[in-house]
């Protein structure tokens, strides 16, 4: 487990890690800079929000004028969503000040008054809400209907030498997504997932993940996870417009679609809360 996206980037480049979840613009920028990695799947859809202090002066987006907003990286969808919101509200990029901050630090910074808002993925908006000092100003989908953030990136040498291992990884994510999104069982399964992911993977209070995954259940979605051309071409366009990508890059250059295609026939895990193993 890492604490920030720049560290994941370095670990991928150095081959300490062969795959990783990172924000989509960072993966595209890495590929544009010649780093041999490709996006093979999405981690989730939605799940990012701009959060402000509940008792603060920011009641609507225009109130952010002159305020300091934390983002996870210059190369993040959480930054791009702010640009979209600025345009819709007739504001200019100079009207706000963005600062890069490691995701686990933002809720504390908002509580301490070091920042006025943050644009971040879950569970940090939930953390601020649950602690009682934060309020979601808007969820990303309000300005970006098909919003995506984290994607699964794999080193090119692994894609070439060990495609079967990559397919197993993608199949597992696809099956987990289907399992979490099964309509009649969605709530119970999300509560169960929050418990074991919180305790064994994220080292976070399971109540926090439960909040993020269930209030409401559409807050983060795990289907569909196939990388779509229209979604990524929008990200590339926004990156170009906001000055973090210095050339156009073709979809095929940074996406490897075969694993998502291979995962389309997968079914949800045969597992119910309380079972010993998933099959």
């Amino acid at each position, binding site marked *: 487990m890492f604490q920030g996206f720049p560290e*994941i980037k370095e670990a991928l480049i150095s081959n300490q890690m062969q795959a*990783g979840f990172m924000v989509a613009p960072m993966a595209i920028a890495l590929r544009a800079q010649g780093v041999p990695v490709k996006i093979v799947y999405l981690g989730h859809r939605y799940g990012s929000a701009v959060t402000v202090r509940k008792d603060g002066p920011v009641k609507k987006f225009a109130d952010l004028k002159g305020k300091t907003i934390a983002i996870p990286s210059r190369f993040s969808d959480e930054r791009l969503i702010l640009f979209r919101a600025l345009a819709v509200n007739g504001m200019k990029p100079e009207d706000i000040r963005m600062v890069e901050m490691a995701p686990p630090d933002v809720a504390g910074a908002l509580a301490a008054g070091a920042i006025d808002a943050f644009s971040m993925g*879950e569970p940090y908006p939930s953390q601020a809400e649950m602690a009682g000092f934060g309020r979601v100003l808007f969820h990303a989908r309000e300005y970006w209907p098909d919003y995506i953030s984290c994607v699964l990136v*794999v080193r090119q040498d692994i894609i070439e030498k060990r495609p079967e291992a990559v397919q197993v990884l993608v199949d597992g994510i696809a099956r987990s997504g289907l399992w979490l999104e099964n309509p009649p069982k969605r709530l119970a399964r999300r509560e169960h997932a929050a418990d074991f992911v919180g305790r064994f993977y*994220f080292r976070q209070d399971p109540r926090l993940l439960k909040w993020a995954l269930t209030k409401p259940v559409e807050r983060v979605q795990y289907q569909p996870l196939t990388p779509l051309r229209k979604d990524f071409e929008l990200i590339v366009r926004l990156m170009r417009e906001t000055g973090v990508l210095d050339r156009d890059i073709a979809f095929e250059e940074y996406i490897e679609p075969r694993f998502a295609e291979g995962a389309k026939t997968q079914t949800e895990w045969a597992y119910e809360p309380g079972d010993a193993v998933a099959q």
Partner: protein
Amino acid sequence: MTPTRKIVLSVIAWVAIITAAHMATNVDWSVVLNDRLPESERKLNVAYIPVT
């Protein structure tokens, strides 16, 4: 057993116990063993941060 010998053996035992406790607590042996496997058999290391 001389006092000097007792002290030396105690120090060695203490260091051994602390070392064993450290290795049991702080070393992820599954990662160490995975890194020693042939590349074709290794599990992929997948990086993530605690966000959705």
